[in-house]
């Protein structure tokens, strides 16, 4: 059908809700990226066929949703109305859950979420701290509705903001967004309202609005989850943005590594077109708007807005000099507004509930919420959305459940390769743009990598520098060659060949690269190095002076020893050593010849008594 007005939206919502209300139970199976990897499709197929087999299709509704958040625990399933949250739901577990939970109303506690802090299972989703502490504006529908149903989206209030926006003037929308204090969620945190205002005022018949879905930070998957779980919300946000600035053409630039997001968004856009929510005269407003998805080839630099535009235009993805800014001369030379995925996901709620409501979340100049992808050595890896201003400690230890294997926290890398690390002493910092920047990190797009005591910070800096060097577009000298030289120095240091002068050179190069690189990628590239040097200088010095890696990560500096107390003289290590550097008689402690050892670790891997120690 074609939705022509608010009444039509209400009609669809009522119809859907009535249909939905017929069921006694709903089984939500997560179809997010993490759960897909853990074979949720099999679980969902099984649930559907088993429900059919039991003849319960009239009573039990099965819904395949987007990401629910606990990505390490997939496949996850939520049963309503009881709101019991099951994890690691294999088809075998699913059978039990249907037999006992759905049919008999009996909670299977051992299949439910296990909270590592509280050391117990918490069956009801609403009691789990991981969920209870979140405030979801961006993700308010993600994981809660079938991602491919426009009716479900409408039933949850979808497109009402768009209808409301069409009743407002462009200025009113821009004012509302400005007043809300929403800032760009892609990294730099530029106020969205000010950007839109510039776009609105830019002269020209043709304007473009672009969504940057080229999420490239290692360990970040917020935007992917949002698009995969709730693609219609992006359409609504961009349509409102397009209307506000006077653009009729929207582009979503999504990386090719996100095939599921690409497929689901394209499907959603197709449905939206069929329903008249993209195309000519949307909702009877007289406003024409459509969105085209362009697939990027996976270059990190194409997340930089000017490089992104070059890529859409079919050019090599290289940044351009600013000014001119995109709002002056952007895509194909037209005034263009580019926002990150998450930014658009806030728009509908701001229009519906008002700037004041939105601004009631957050602190200082950081309003609303922020979605983070928790990754690394944290127990609850996954997607979370928290109000700005939450202490980092709470984010990592309460929501994230703390550090795996009872290890000690060492640092959190915020902002990906452009960001910096936050250490134990600053764990109570408020997560907002200004506080993070003051600590040498950045909010970034929301990648949050938690590192335990087993992480070598020099090696981490080397990892990010390798990433930057691989991804530098090669346009400007400081980024193309400077980061290469920095990488080589870091490689020297982790190999035990560094000198103290190398640290000075790293700092010298860092400052020049920051000061002279053309784009944001280059200007922020030295951040992980500067931040680790300033927080962990002793660790660098240990590599350089003592030739040791305190975290025992850097293999070139590691040494393997055999603990004579534990060694039983079984000879297994000696027989597996590829360079025959382990000697010892049978049933007597063995010894490793350090001068010959190539540090391959075969002895440690083969020892059955834990006698081989890496130092």
């Amino acid at each position, binding site marked *: 059908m074609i939705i022509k007005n608010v009444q039509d939206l209400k009609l669809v919502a009522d119809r859907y809700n009535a249909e939905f209300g017929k069921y006694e139970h709903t089984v939500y199976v997560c179809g997010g990226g993490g759960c897909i990897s853990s074979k949720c499709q099999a679980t969902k197929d099984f649930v559907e066929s088993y429900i059919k087999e039991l003849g319960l299709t009239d009573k039990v509704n099965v819904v395949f949703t987007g990401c629910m958040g606990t990505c390490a625990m997939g496949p996850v399933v939520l049963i309503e109305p009881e709101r019991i949250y099951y994890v690691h739901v294999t088809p075998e577990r699913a059978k039990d859950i249907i037999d006992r939970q759905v049919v008999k109303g009996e909670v299977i506690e051992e299949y439910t979420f296990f909270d590592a802090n509280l050391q117990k299972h918490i069956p009801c989703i609403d009691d789990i701290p991981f969920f209870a502490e979140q405030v979801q504006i961006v993700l308010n529908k993600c994981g809660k509705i079938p991602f491919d149903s426009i009716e479900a989206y409408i039933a949850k209030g979808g497109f009402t903001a768009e209808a409301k926006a069409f009743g407002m003037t462009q200025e009113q929308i821009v004012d509302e967004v400005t007043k809300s204090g929403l800032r760009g969620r892609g990294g730099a945190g530029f106020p969205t309202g000010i950007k839109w205002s510039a776009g609105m005022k830019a002269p020209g018949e043709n304007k473009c609005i672009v969504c940057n879905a080229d999420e490239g930070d290692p360990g970040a998957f917020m935007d992917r989850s949002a698009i995969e779980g709730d693609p219609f919300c992006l359409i609504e946000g961009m349509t409102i943005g397009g209307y506000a600035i006077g653009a009729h053409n929207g582009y979503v630039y999504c990386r090719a590594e996100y095939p599921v997001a690409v497929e689901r968004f394209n499907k959603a856009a197709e449905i939206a077109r069929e329903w008249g929510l993209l195309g000519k005269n949307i909702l009877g407003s007289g406003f024409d708007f459509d969105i085209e998805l362009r697939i990027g080839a996976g270059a990190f630099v194409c997340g930089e807005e000017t490089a992104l535009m070059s890529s859409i235009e079919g050019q090599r993805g290289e940044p351009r000099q600013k000014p001119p800014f995109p709002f002056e001369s952007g895509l194909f030379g037209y005034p263009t507004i580019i926002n990150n995925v998450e930014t658009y996901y806030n728009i509908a709620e701001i229009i519906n509930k008002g700037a004041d409501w939105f601004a009631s979340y957050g602190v200082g100049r950081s309003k609303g919420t922020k979605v983070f992808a928790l990754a690394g050595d944290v127990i609850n890896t996954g997607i979370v959305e928290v109000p700005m201003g939450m202490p980092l400690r709470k984010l990592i230890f309460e929501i994230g459940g703390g550090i795996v294997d009872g290890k000690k926290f060492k640092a959190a890398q915020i902002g990906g390769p452009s960001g910096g690390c936050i250490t134990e002493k600053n764990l109570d910092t408020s997560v907002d743009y200004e506080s993070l920047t003051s600590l040498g990190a950045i909010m970034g797009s929301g990648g949050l990598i938690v590192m335990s005591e087993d992480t070598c910070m020099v090696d981490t800096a080397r990892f990010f520098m390798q990433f930057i060097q691989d991804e530098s577009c090669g346009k400007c000298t400081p980024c193309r060659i400077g980061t290469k030289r920095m990488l080589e120095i870091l490689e020297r240091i982790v190999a035990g060949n560094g000198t103290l002068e190398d640290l000075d050179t790293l700092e010298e190069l860092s400052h*020049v690269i920051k000061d002279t690189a053309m784009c944001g990628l280059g200007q922020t590239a030295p951040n992980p190095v500067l931040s680790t040097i300033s927080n962990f200088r002793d660790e660098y010095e240990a590599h350089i002076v003592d030739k040791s890696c305190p975290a025992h990560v850097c293999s070139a500096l590691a040494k393997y020893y055999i603990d004579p107390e534990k060694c039983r003289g079984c000879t297994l290590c000696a027989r597996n050593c590829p360079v025959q550097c382990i000697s010892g008689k049978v049933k007597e402690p063995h010894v490793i010849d350090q001068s010959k050892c190539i540090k391959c670790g075969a002895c440690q891997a083969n020892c059955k008594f834990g006698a081989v120690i890496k130092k």
Partner: protein
Amino acid sequence: MSKVNITINGKPYEAEAGKTILEVARENNIYIPTLCYLEGVNQYGGCRLCMVEVETNGRPMRNLQAACMIKISDGMSIKTNTERVRKARKVNLELLLSCHPKDCLSCPRSLDCELQTLSRRLNVTEPRFEGEMKDLPVEISTVMTRDMSKCVNCRRCVAMCNKIQKIGVLNAQKRGFKTVIQPSFGMNIADTDCTNCGQCISVCPVGALRETDAIDPVVKAIEDPNKYTIVQVAPAVRVAIGEPFGMPSGSVATGKMVTALKALNFDEVFDVNFGADLTIMEEGTEFLQRAKAALTGGEAVLPMMTSCSPGWIKFIEHRYPELLPNLSSCKSPHMMQGALVKTYYAEKLGKDPKDIYLVSVMPCTAKKFEIARPEMNENGVPDVDAVLTTRELANMIKQAGIDFVNLPDSEFDPPMGISTGAADIFGVTGGVMEAALRTVYELVTGRELPCENLHVAPLGDSTQIKTASLTFENVLPEYKFLEGFTANVAVTSGFDGAAQVMEMVKAGKAFHFIEVMGCPGGCIVGGGQPRGVKAEKWAARKAGIYAIDEGKQLRKSHENPAIKAIYEEYLGQPCGHKSHEILHTHYTARGKYNELI
């Protein structure tokens, strides 16, 4: 243009709005180092050597800014010489040097290298930041030698190939430190639709791009007692050859050049101008034949297009093969002359053509490809044996220890040293057309071309596409069919203009005669000419060419007595049987990978 007020290093300046910081600084003799920037070609902001501190509205910008990219605005305050600026520039230069081979002593660009000059100017005194080098194989084609280990990624060649010439063969491939400028998929340039125009070479600041050197085989031939070596020089060379020796652009150095060539022990020194006059006779006649056919109901392909520029020939073979019948079948002037040397003149000398070694000195790199075309030979003997660019000739003269500037003048050797002013202007865009019109008009009407000083305005100026019309009235009886006919001519140079004109032709625009030169501005700024800022050199060299033309007694090709003689003695008549045998050629359609179609 409105004016804005800025300060540079605390001193106030008034400058035109819309200009960049670099432009204003240069106008006021304030030095800012640049490497990737090239006026009119490349404004790229990649090398980061032109960094300056900028303050707008009283607020300092957080980072240093590239002076070549940032436009001035009212109240802007710029500092070009602070410690922060100097340090940043030097570190970036040192980074560039850190992966640049340190073989300056044996580099062909030594002392003529912009990177080397910057190193001195920015006082780089020790190698810093050493690490991995770019270890890439040197690619050698018939035309050019590409040593990408020396490339500094300034992208001037990329801009030339993509923005100016719009050929699009060269671009950056790969990312990060591995970024390399090459054709897609790392193909060899010889396997692409590169036109060999050599404009990339002429803008390269370092030793990464150069013509494939032909000096060695030429020297070998000179030294070979069994070879009779003849050299012939294109019109555009004489106004540029003085530059590498410190003479101002446009200095007419014909006499010194001939003396130098004789000092290099060539047996004879000919002028390609002779071939140019011959070309006008052949091409003019071909045009009249086509026009006659068209106007008398016969079959004729019009507009006819000139065929002097080998870059242009390769361009049309790749891009507009359907228009190949429009190309004049005339060989280019030096090839015509080569064919005559290897036939007529060999006979006259009583030598086996195989024993004659003919060298062309050209402002052009594409000529190196042209002489290797399989059709360019007479009975298996190549028309021309080697092509030297103007730059190579200058190198040869330097190697020979010849004091070029103080040489006395000499004359070209007869018979192929005699020429008219019409031939000289072949070196400038519009020149071939003007030369052709001087002869065609006079042949048809018996009167001199009715233009001031014989110059057809605006064909000679620097506009990309120029058109003119010429009506034939009171024609001689044998050209009755042309009475009242208005010939529409077009002139363009550079492949961007060429493509535009070809599209006009395809769209049915009624042109009759079109001149195309591959290099923007014509041969005087050809890919084989001494490097330097295009616009200034173009004007000076053009002035030099026109001065030669205007200074000559004979300014119309058909008045050349040597040409008359050769028709009487050997060729018979223009476009006659003999001409067709040796002075004309044919073309082949080519695909994107230079495969013949």
